[in-house]
């Protein structure tokens, strides 16, 4: 039997017996906790049909899926598309030969990476939204998410472009291409392939963050959830259903990212960028954060 972990040897018969005891103990503890939760819910009448009814009623299901999930997906979609544009511009800008352009791009990216998305949303909505003729809450969420995710993607783009082998740009210059041509025809097309999985992972972050629109009454899944639990006083049930929806969409996205990674990049780790240090060629292993 091959060994699979640096942490311990392959178990012998006595260790295996000990593992079995631990398995039983952990099984009892975890199932016990779950049972406690279920009993508690039952004791408080949380399984009453009335509280779950909205999730079995076609009208509410439609509200959850169309007004909720679809709007959330649209918000995430717009912000990711715009973030890719923002990220390309600022990521390339950070690699510019002109110190002033580099500096401006660097400070914009650093600023929006350090400021909480929620604070941006609140600033946009209560500063320029709300009231007649102002920005729609929907677009406040999209703009805030674009600025934040765009800044993260700018780092990803920069790392992706740097990850293209040096020989590529040297060869391109050697056959007489100009700076812009090298970037648009040689580096970017190859970098996109490397960055694609990271961009899709960023979609998960954007999708989760759309729920922050709750604070500025933006539409979306969380908002519909709030309306339902205000009407029915079934907070617990709504949270479970809404969380299940978010988790399933995110799992699909994660699965797509892994598939794209395997298809286009190979078994290497997904390119991820650390919040700290100007890592070169995406040396950081940061697990996404948010």
């Amino acid at each position, binding site marked *: 039997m091959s*060994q699979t*972990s*640096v*942490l*311990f*040897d392959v*178990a012998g018969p006595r260790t295996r017996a000990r*593992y079995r005891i631990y*398995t039983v103990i*952990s*099984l009892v503890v*975890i199932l016990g906790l779950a049972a406690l*939760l279920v009993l*508690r819910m039952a004791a*408080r009448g*949380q399984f009453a049909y009335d509280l779950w009814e909205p999730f079995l009623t076609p009208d509410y299901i439609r509200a959850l899926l169309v007004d909720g999930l679809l709007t959330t997906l649209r918000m995430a979609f717009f912000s990711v598309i715009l973030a890719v544009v923002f990220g390309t511009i600022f990521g390339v800008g950070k690699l510019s030969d002109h110190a002033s352009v580099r500096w401006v791009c660097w400070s914009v990216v*650093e*600023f929006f*990476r*350090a*400021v*909480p998305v*929620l*604070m941006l949303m*609140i*600033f946009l909505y*209560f*500063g320029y939204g709300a009231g007649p003729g102002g920005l729609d809450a929907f677009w406040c969420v999209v703009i805030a998410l674009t600025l934040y995710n765009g800044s993260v993607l700018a780092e990803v783009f920069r790392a992706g472009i740097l990850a293209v082998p040096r020989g590529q740009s040297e060869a391109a210059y050697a056959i007489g291409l100009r700076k812009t041509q090298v970037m648009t025809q040689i580096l970017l097309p190859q970098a996109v392939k490397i960055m694609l999985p990271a961009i899709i992972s960023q979609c*998960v972050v954007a999708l*989760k*963050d*759309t*729920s*922050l629109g*709750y*604070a500025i009454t933006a539409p979306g899944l*969380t908002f519909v*959830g709030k309306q339902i*639990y205000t009407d029915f006083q079934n*907070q*617990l049930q709504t*949270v479970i259903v*809404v*969380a299940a929806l*978010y*988790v399933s969409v995110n*799992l699909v996205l*994660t699965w797509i990212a892994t598939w794209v990674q395997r298809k286009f990049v190979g078994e290497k780790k997904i390119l991820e960028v*650390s*919040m*700290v*240090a100007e*890592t070169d060629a995406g040396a*950081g*292993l*940061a*697990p*996404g*954060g*948010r």
Partner: protein
Amino acid sequence: MELVFSNFDLYLSACRLTIGLFLVSAVGSLVLGTLLAAMRVGPIAFMSKAATVYITVVRNTPLLIIFVFVIIGLPKLGILFRSVEELGISSFFFRACLALTLYTSTFVAEAIRSGINAVPLGQAEAARAIGLTFGGTMTQVVLPQAFRATVPPMASVFIALLKNTSVAYAFGILEATARMKYFTNISGNDLPIFLIFAAGYVVLVEIVSFGANRLERRWSVAR
């Protein structure tokens, strides 16, 4: 802008609350995260499955939903954290920290796991080959290298946590973001106020990132 400077104590107390939320949840998620990581990489298949399920579900749920669950959902089960109030801690503060901890611990666990995975198998094999015991292998060879590899992702997690404390705003906690809203409501001139509060976050983020850089440099070795 003057409004903020003439009420600077309010600004500072809001920042203190943000820092308090951050520190308490950071410690909490380190503890819970380490426990989850230990379960996940440990040899007991069932524990590893359980930890994986928890991490996958919580990581993919928006933080806001977890806040709703802890702050609005749990009281429905009669879990009100009264005992915390008796200790003189606001139960709102405690519940906000609990939500942040539940969420962030999953990212901490993943950071630790990636650190352990970064240690080449040969290291442990070599350590055993020269006759180190299990404890010696762990403390002298595997864990020091794992901790080193954990620093950058862990810093990202904590920076995200720092920014995530702003979600507590939506649940009636007067931290920095809520205070910004308070000031912008009164003044009407939003941009300077936004910039002052944003600067506060930028400074805090830079402190965390500077600390991580120092730690990484001190621990880094030529391989």
